[in-house]
């Protein structure tokens, strides 16, 4: 074998071997391979979101009206919390890159400290994501879903600084609950292998009764008008719409129903932020493993902290994806 290799006569030529055109180690290159393919997966998801949004361009939910909560505070604060989450993730990216930099200078204690901060940042982000999900699933004002699958929401005009503004009102604040005879299908009283989800608190006729009793309540459709707001119907239209087309009261969101608008919005929200959240979670786990390796002095003995650099690449990529998710879910 040796003789064959020598007799090729390519020494000193470009294809003679030993050439490193990319100047990067195998591990780092493979991480880049993974990142490119994962980037394409994420763009597939985000573009699918764009596809569905373009399909319903005139009736898509307005993100500012959906994500308005901040933990421990009451009131309407669109975007503030997501902006905070974005900042936490960027900040943990910074501590990660500082850890990489400290690794280049073989400063073990600094690497430990920065890796620790990165892990904390990641944990805060995942926790925030969980809170965001919980709030989204629980819902806000409830709405009525029509037979055609459209979502009708309720509110009233209030005067804010001399201007008439449409303010949302929760279904539970005006619907008149009547005694109903509908019983929930449970395993003990129906087919033994299936049961039904909890019944909605209100029925469509409760909502109609509430609408008729409260003269100020109006319904609005999902159609976005020229001012970029959802179309508010007149009193008569509102009552007729619920009476003729109302199918069920929906509260919160899951993969089947969504009080904020089209179901697809909730589906994509769970799918894309969930997939990203899973990346952050696995990033935190990998960071923890590397963190302990650093403490144990594995890389000190190896003489190179390149492993920190490789997980760093992954961690920055997760941040990079969030920048896009943030734009396309919350801003655009």
């Amino acid at each position, binding site marked *: 074998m040796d003789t064959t290799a020598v007799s090729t006569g390519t020494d000193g030529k470009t294809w003679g071997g030993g050439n490193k055109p*990319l100047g990067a180690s195998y591990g780092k290159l493979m991480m880049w391979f993974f990142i*490119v393919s994962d980037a394409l997966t994420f763009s597939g998801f985000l573009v699918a979101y764009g596809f569905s949004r373009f399909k319903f361009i005139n009736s898509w939910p307005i993100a500012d009206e959906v994500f308005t909560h901040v933990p421990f505070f009451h009131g309407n604060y669109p*975007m503030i919390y997501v902006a905070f989450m974005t900042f936490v993730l960027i*900040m943990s990216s*910074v501590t990660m890159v500082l850890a990489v930099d400290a690794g280049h200078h073989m400063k073990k204690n600094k690497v430990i400290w920065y890796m620790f901060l990165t892990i904390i940042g990641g944990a805060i982000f995942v926790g925030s994501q969980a809170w965001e999900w919980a709030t989204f699933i629980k819902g806000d004002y409830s709405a009525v879903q029509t037979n055609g699958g459209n979502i009708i929401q309720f509110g009233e005009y209030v005067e804010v600084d001399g201007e008439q503004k449409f303010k949302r009102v929760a279904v539970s604040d005006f619907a008149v609950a009547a005694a109903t005879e509908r019983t929930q299908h449970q395993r003990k009283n129906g087919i033994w292998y299936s049961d039904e989800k909890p019944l909605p608190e209100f029925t469509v006729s409760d909502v109609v009764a509430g609408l008729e009793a409260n003269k100020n309540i109006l319904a609005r459709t999902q159609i976005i008008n020229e001012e970029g707001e959802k179309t508010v119907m007149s009193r008569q239209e509102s009552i007729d719409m619920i009476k003729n087309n109302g199918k069920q009261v929906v509260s919160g969101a899951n993969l089947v129903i969504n009080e904020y608008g089209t179901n697809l919005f909730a589906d994509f929200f769970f799918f894309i932020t969930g997939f990203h959240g899973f990346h952050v979670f696995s990033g935190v786990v990998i960071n923890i493993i590397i963190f302990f390796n650093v403490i144990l002095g594995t890389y000190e003995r190896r003489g190179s902290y390149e492993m920190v650099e490789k997980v760093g690449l992954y961690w920055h990529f997760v*941040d990079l994806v969030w920048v*896009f998710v943030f734009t396309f879910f919350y801003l655009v």
Partner: protein
Amino acid sequence: MAHAHKLEIFRGLIKFKSNTSKIWGVLLLLTIVTAVEVVLGIYKPEALMGQFLGMKGLNWIFIILTIVKAYYITWDFMHMRDETAGLRRMVVWTAVFLICYLVFILLQEGGYIERVYESGFIKRDF
């Protein structure tokens, strides 16, 4: 290679003394860009709400600012600035080309389906 960081951003307009100070500089830049995005997203200035190339002007601003952020994350945090041109092109152009293709195909198709709905061939208002 590990110690040879390029320490200038904005095509040499700003030069940093050390890699650490460059990192903080880039953090400052990313924070400012995010803050601008959030403020624009909350106040939605009327002047930017006009249609431009099939989208609201404001949305174009958001997308451009996002790409700016992506650039600095990749170039300075992921050290793409310090990699060889070959590696950089392999990663960036592959992704950019395929993503542009995806975006074009799917958004075009989404718009088409929207027009089918709008022209009333499929009833949805019930």
